[in-house]
């Protein structure tokens, strides 16, 4: 068996200090000690209903949340809370809400160039702009997006831009926290397709968070099911979805919609339409 790329051991996150009068009652145990590992090149899904601790886990992996307990190892070495630039670069994240995950006052180009320059991934400004344009090609966005601000784009387009930002630093692990659940169903497929293709073409490893098992079936290899801060079931996607052992997984399955398998050769550029929300200026 190959060495895991990401290894999470006994991860727990508790919110609220627990100090003061309420004692333990004031605390929220978002994650109660979970273990899982993600192998290089695979798409690992974390599913569960709202409030089960998926985003909290994702944030810990991305270095946005300090674990209360437990350890996270990456490529064999433990990550400490204050990650160095190289460790940050290796793990990138795509967020759920495309409307808040891009800085409204920065052009797409400026945002990408800033990241490339900070990480010294481009020798000159011109090289950075060129690389930014290539990133847009990669996610199926027109290069004219470089000079535009986020408000010029629809939700699906913004999510592609979010993916481009995450890929700017050549990460080896992409954490995607419900990347399509804020999008129209018609647009979801094209973003999922993009992720699937990138995973194949760039050899990305993916930690994919979802509450929808149908989406997981389309995209992922293995899945862990979370409920109330714990992992209740884990295994290959085919096995877990066809013969779930936990009652909870069965409930989730019953709620899942049926989606056709993703066709990797489909035309990617199907949601280049005018933005849904256009701000009045």
């Amino acid at each position, binding site marked *: 068996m190959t060495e895991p790329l990401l290894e999470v051991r006994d991860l727990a996150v508790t919110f609220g200090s627990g100090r003061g009068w309420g004692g333990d009652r004031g605390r929220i145990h978002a994650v109660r000690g979970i273990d899982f590992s993600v192998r290089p090149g695979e798409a690992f899904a974390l599913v569960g209903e709202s409030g089960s601790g998926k985003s909290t886990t994702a*944030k810990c992996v*991305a*270095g*946005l949340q300090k674990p209360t307990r437990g350890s996270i190892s990456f490529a064999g070495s433990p990550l400490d809370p204050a990650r160095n*630039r190289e460790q*940050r*670069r290796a*793990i*990138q*994240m795509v*967020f*759920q*809400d495309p409307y*808040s*995950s*891009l*800085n*409204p*006052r*920065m052009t797409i180009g400026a945002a990408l160039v*800033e*990241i490339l320059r*900070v*990480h010294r991934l481009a020798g000159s400004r011109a090289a950075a702009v060129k690389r930014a344009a290539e990133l847009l090609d990669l996610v199926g966005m027109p290069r004219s997006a470089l000079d535009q601000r986020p408000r010029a784009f629809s939700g699906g387009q913004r999510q592609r831009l*979010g993916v481009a*930002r*995450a890929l*700017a*630093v050549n990460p080896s692990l992409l954490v995607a926290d419900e990347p399509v659940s804020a999008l129209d169903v018609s647009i979801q497929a094209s973003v999922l397709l993009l992720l699937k293709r990138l995973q194949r073409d760039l050899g990305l490893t993916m930690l994919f968070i979802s509450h929808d098992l149908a989406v997981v079936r389309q995209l992922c290899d293995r899945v862990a099911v979370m409920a109330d801060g714990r992992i209740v079931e884990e295994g290959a996607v085919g096995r877990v979805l066809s013969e779930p052992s936990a009652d909870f997984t069965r409930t989730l399955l019953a709620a899942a919609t049926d989606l056709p398998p993703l066709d990797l050769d489909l035309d990617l550029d199907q949601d280049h339409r005018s933005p849904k929300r256009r*701000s*009045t*200026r």
Partner: protein
Amino acid sequence: MSVSSSLSRTRVASWYERRSKRLRRRSPRGADASLAIGLVIIGAMMLAALFAGVLSPADPTRQDIPNALAPPGTDGHLLGTDALGRDILSRLLYAARTDLFVAVGAVLLPLVIGVAIGTIAGYRGGIVDRVVTGVVNVVFAFPVLVLLIALVFILGPGIPTIIVAVTLVSWVSYARLARDLVRRERSLDYVLAARVSGLPTWRILGRHILRNIIAQPVTFAMSDAVAIILFITALGFLGLGVPPPAPDWGTMIADAQPYFTTHWWLAVFPGLAICAAGLGLSLIADGLSQKWNAQ
């Protein structure tokens, strides 16, 4: 009379809410108009202040008792003379220098200091935030006039004293406003994304968060400038303001008190100058916040 000391947190917040609600209803074209008119008024006043030496028909401090209380239009005194026979137009122009300078200084310093402290407190949270919030609350509760009188004793009366005193008191309004805005902003996904991207903290604060929150403090500063000009006026009344014979609008009105009913021009012209400055600054504030809201 108080500037920011009386502006409790809720007043700042509700002031901004009311303002932005009102502004949202207006047309975007109104923003450009307000901004343009405001800039013209303030620009003209700044130019007048800058070229006071050239534009003034007379020395603003030269007394000419035989020609005291001359009405507007009198030979050589377009706006008349005051009780000591000094040319009112010249005094107005030189006063613009004093008042605009004090207003700019007493607004910029607290704006910069307050926003910097508030931003760091809001982003860092924890002990830093608790200490800053504590200090802010203490300063809010402190009577500004007591502080000012103490400072006049220490530093002596004058423009620097006023600026230092106002800064010591009013940075807290900006700190509190910026702190609350940053606390809300820092949990937004674009800030988290910037952190995941590995951007240094100073860059996240300066290039990402500050750009998104600066509109409110700057807009507030414009209105605060109006309050500060009125505050200097009040100081003039109390004899704590700009020391004579340097003219300022507030002292001119205070000096005109015995003549309010008999010689209207002594108080009306400086009063108009204060109104114009206030109007210009408010228009700029309106235009700016409307433009920012539209983005």
